[in-house]
C-alpha cells in the first residue's frame, strides 16, 4: 500500500482491453451512456463497461442511490468509508476521486493528508475513527467487521440506518475498486 502514490489530483484511467467503439455503438449502449451522466461521455471506463450495458445501467442507478441518497449518513462520511477501503485495496484512481469528494464536502484536507501519510490507522477524532475502523474491517475478504465495530459506531451516534448507509458505501467500493484495478490503470489527466 505504501508503495502506491495516493493523490487527490484529478487522474485519468486507461482500459487494458478495447472499450465499445462509440460511433458503432447500439442505441441501447448510447442510451445507457447518456443516462450515466456527463462524466461518462468521454470516459474509457464507462465506454468499456458499456460492453454489458444492462449491468452498467443498474449499477449506475445503484451507485447514485448509495452515494448521493439524501437521507441518512452525511455524504462526506460515505465518501470517507469509500476512501479508506480504496486505500486498503490499493485503488489509486478510486482514492483520488473519493478523497477529493471528502475534502470538498467536509472541508477537512487534514484528514486525507493523515490517511495518505499514515494509512487507515492514522489518528482521527472518535466519530471518524469508528467509521474508518468499520470500513477497514468490512473491506477485508472475507469481511471481518464484528460487534466491536458496530458498538463503536453506535457510541459515536450512528443509527442502524446510518450504519447500513456506511456498509452499502463500503460494499459498493468493494465492487468499484475491483473493476478499476483489474480492467485498466490510472494515468495522469
Amino acid at each position: 500500500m505504501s508503495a502506491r502514490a495516493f493523490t487527490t489530483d484529478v487522474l485519468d484511467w486507461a482500459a487494458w482491453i478495447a472499450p465499445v467503439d462509440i460511433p458503432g455503438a447500439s442505441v441501447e449502449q448510447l442510451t445507457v451512456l447518456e443516462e450515466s451522466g456527463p462524466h461518462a461521455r468521454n470516459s474509457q471506463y464507462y465506454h468499456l463497461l458499456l460492453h454489458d450495458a444492462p449491468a452498467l445501467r443498474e449499477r449506475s442507478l445503484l451507485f447514485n442511490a448509495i452515494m448521493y441518497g439524501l437521507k441518512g449518513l452525511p455524504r462526506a462520511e460515505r465518501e470517507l468509508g469509500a476512501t479508506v477501503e480504496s486505500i486498503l485495496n490499493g485503488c489509486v484512481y478510486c482514492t483520488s476521486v473519493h478523497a477529493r469528494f471528502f475534502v470538498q464536502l467536509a472541508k477537512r484536507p487534514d484528514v486525507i493528508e493523515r490517511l495518505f501519510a499514515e494509512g487507515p490507522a492514522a489518528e482521527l477524532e472518535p466519530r471518524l475513527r469508528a467509521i474508518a475502523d468499520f470500513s477497514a474491517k468490512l473491506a477485508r475478504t472475507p469481511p471481518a467487521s464484528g460487534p466491536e465495530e458496530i458498538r463503536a459506531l453506535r457510541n459515536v451516534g450512528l443509527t442502524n440506518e446510518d450504519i447500513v448507509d456506511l456498509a452499502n458505501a463500503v460494499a459498493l467500493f468493494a465492487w468499484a475498486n475491483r473493476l478499476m484495478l483489474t480492467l485498466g490503470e490510472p494515468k495522469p489527466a
Partner: protein
Amino acid sequence: MSHIAEDVIDATSGVTEGSPLDALRAARPEVRARTQSSYAALFDSAGSGGLPAHERFAVAMRVAQLHKASTLAVHYRDRLALEAQGEQTAAGVTARLAAILRHADKVTLRPADATRADLNALAAQGLGEAEIVTLSQIIAFVAYQVRVAASLALIAEFA
C-alpha cells in the same frame, strides 16, 4: 411471491416480512431495488448471449465461497445445478473455466496485483471483451453483495 422471495439478499439473509431488517431495508427502497436489479442484469438474463450461464453461476459461487458467505454460495450452487441440468458436464472443469476461476480468485483476494496479462490469459481462452466485462462485473458484484448481507446479519445480531 412476496417481495422477500423475489429479493436474493432478503431470501438468503433470512429477512422476513415485517421484521426489523425488512423495515431497515425498506428505509432505502432504491438501494434495495437496484441491488436486486443489478443481480437480475447479471444472472437472470443469462442465456441471452455473452458469458454462458453456467460460467456466470460457477464464478459467483466461487466468489461467495472465497468470502465464506455460505448461504449465498448455496444460492449460486443451486442456480448452477439448475442450469447444468440437461447440459453435458462430462468435460468437468474445462481449461476455460479454470482460467475464469483463477481470475476470480485474483480479483477477489488480490485485485491490486492484476495486470494486463491477466486479461490476455482470459482472451487466450476465447473470452471476448464483452465476456471479460461481464465476468468482471459478476466477480465485483458478488464482493458487494456479500458485504451488504454480512452487514445486515451483523446489525440484526447486535440490535
